[in-house]
């Protein structure tokens, strides 16, 4: 199991991200309890529900559907990651040629 999952206590709403086992593509997990291709399709966990959310998300690893689950804090105004690295995971590479 990924060590990245050991996050500090959340101070902002949280979603979870991982890579899909079969093709490695980035996927997102929210309160709906399903791994989705788009962060826009999920709703974040409240900060105080992040730990419970992590337990649910990790089930995806135990079920061997996803790899490397970790928490991502998002903007309360919308499911946009606060950190640049995860914003890149949302939008894909910032370079045009291969990003299609």
């Amino acid at each position, binding site marked *: 199991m990924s060590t990245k999952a050991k996050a500090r206590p959340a101070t902002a709403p949280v979603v979870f991200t991982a890579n899909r086992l079969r093709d490695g593509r980035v996927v997102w997990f929210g309160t709906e309890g399903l791994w989705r291709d788009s962060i826009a399709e999920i709703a974040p966990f409240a900060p105080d529900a992040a730990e419970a959310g992590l337990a649910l998300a990790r089930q995806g690893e135990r079920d061997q559907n996803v790899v490397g689950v970790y928490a991502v804090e998002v903007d309360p105004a919308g499911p946009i990651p606060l*950190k640049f690295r995860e914003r890149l995971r949302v939008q894909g*590479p910032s370079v045009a040629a291969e990003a299609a």
Partner: protein
Amino acid sequence: MNALTPPQYARTYRYDEIDREFLQERIAEFRGQIERRLAGELTEDEFKPLRLMNGLYLQLHAYMLRVAIPYGLLNSAQLRQLGRIARRWDRGFGHFTTRQNIQFNWTKLEDVPAMLEALAEVDMHAIQTSGNCIRNTTTDEYAGATPDEVVDPLVYAEILRQWSTLHPEFTWLPRKFKIAITGSPNDRVAAQVHDVGVLAKRNERGEVGFEVHAGGGLGRTPIIARKLRDWVPESEFLAYMEAVLRVYNALGQRENIYKARIKILVRDLGDEFTQMVEREYERMPRDRYRLDPDIVAAIGAHFAPPPFAALEDQELPEDPEFRAWASTSVRAHRQPGYASVTISLKPIGGIPGDASADQMEAVADLAERHSFGEIRVTHVQNLVLPHVRQEDLHALWQGLRAAGLATPNIGLISDIIACPGMDYCALATARSIPIAQRISERFASLDRQHDIGECFINISGCINACGHHHVAHIGILGVDKRGEEVYQVTLGGSATNDAAIGELIGPAFSYDTIVDAVETLITTYIAHRSPGERFIDTYRRIGVTPFKDALYAPA
């Protein structure tokens, strides 16, 4: 000849039936492991070391398959097949790396066995492109072609490949291990910043021997290598290499990943490391490791010179655009009437090292037509056609231009090394590629690039330094500062005979201001340069202060 038949005279090593049988067994083994992983029978913790041993990483957006290109040497059938793989299983691109390998950035786990089968069809694989083992040995992209060469290093690079592939003692080293070998006194392989750097040379009797350096490296702790031996006879080459690896394998700091490379051991032990290698070498049953001249000759047969025609050197056509390209891309060849051509994979605003499937196929065709079907990958992330008739240069240039591969910027400021950075790499802390793109766009004017002259900019997206920023004239290192990308600048690095680690110039620049900072460095150089001086010459003469003053002076 079908598309997968290697051209007759290309000097790539040809697998025998044992090689091919092994490769098929290895693919079958990994296919089984993938199937078990997809079926949930292996956890990621169990699977990860298995996939890494087969060159398969899990990156930011997808799996990445890193394919070995032994010492950067390809034949046209292999390059054509890489293009086919890019089109069928990736997004139509491949990325050539500073290790002279190629990476496919959008690999699906379920496709990997088919990709490996396709590679095996042209005697290629992805083994030992990851993990704590001996990685792809790199060499001079002009090997066998350059006039300053004393020994053709390809033969010894292949010997190193055979020795290091699946070496049972060195499969689990303390950390990864990278070897570079050159046969020219002019270092084009960055030998002094490798775990082991080898200079093949000849003594007064014409015998081949090797000068061996060890303990160089970049990354978190950049160090210039230490010379261990001025001369190792050819017959003792593998014995001595074995001794170096044994000492490292026994004493490398496995408990701390940041101190596990050989450079830390060599730095800490100093002379004692050299003596330990010598003691190990002395006590080894050296007959067992002796490199038999018959073996050298047999491997050398794979690298026999192609059948050059008896030609005279000739003047290039007057076409000014062609001449501008030739002035940077065409290099002297040891054979009269021939030249080596470097193909820029750095179009203005492009991704350094990227080639599309169409471009790979175009270069394969051009190599067959003009270079005995032989192609090299450079550690600067370009390609080389090593043996081109001078009379064919104009036609070759037209073919390259049609494929979008005739940017005349080799060795100039837009010929930038850049790692994949945060756009792809899971380890990166900042983006590299867009910085390279913006710098090349800022300096897009070829007249200006030629006026600036030779200037090497290397960009890494994290401290691991895959972009070799420490040894650039202008090095750029992207780091994360409270969730934002910032870029540190080092000046005065060099990867050649006068190898040097660049000096950190001051506080980092933001993503938005780093290109302006490069512009300031260049205008400072232009203002201070003496006639004929390159950027690095001026920097060495006037020191860091004028550059620092220009960058950090209050407005």
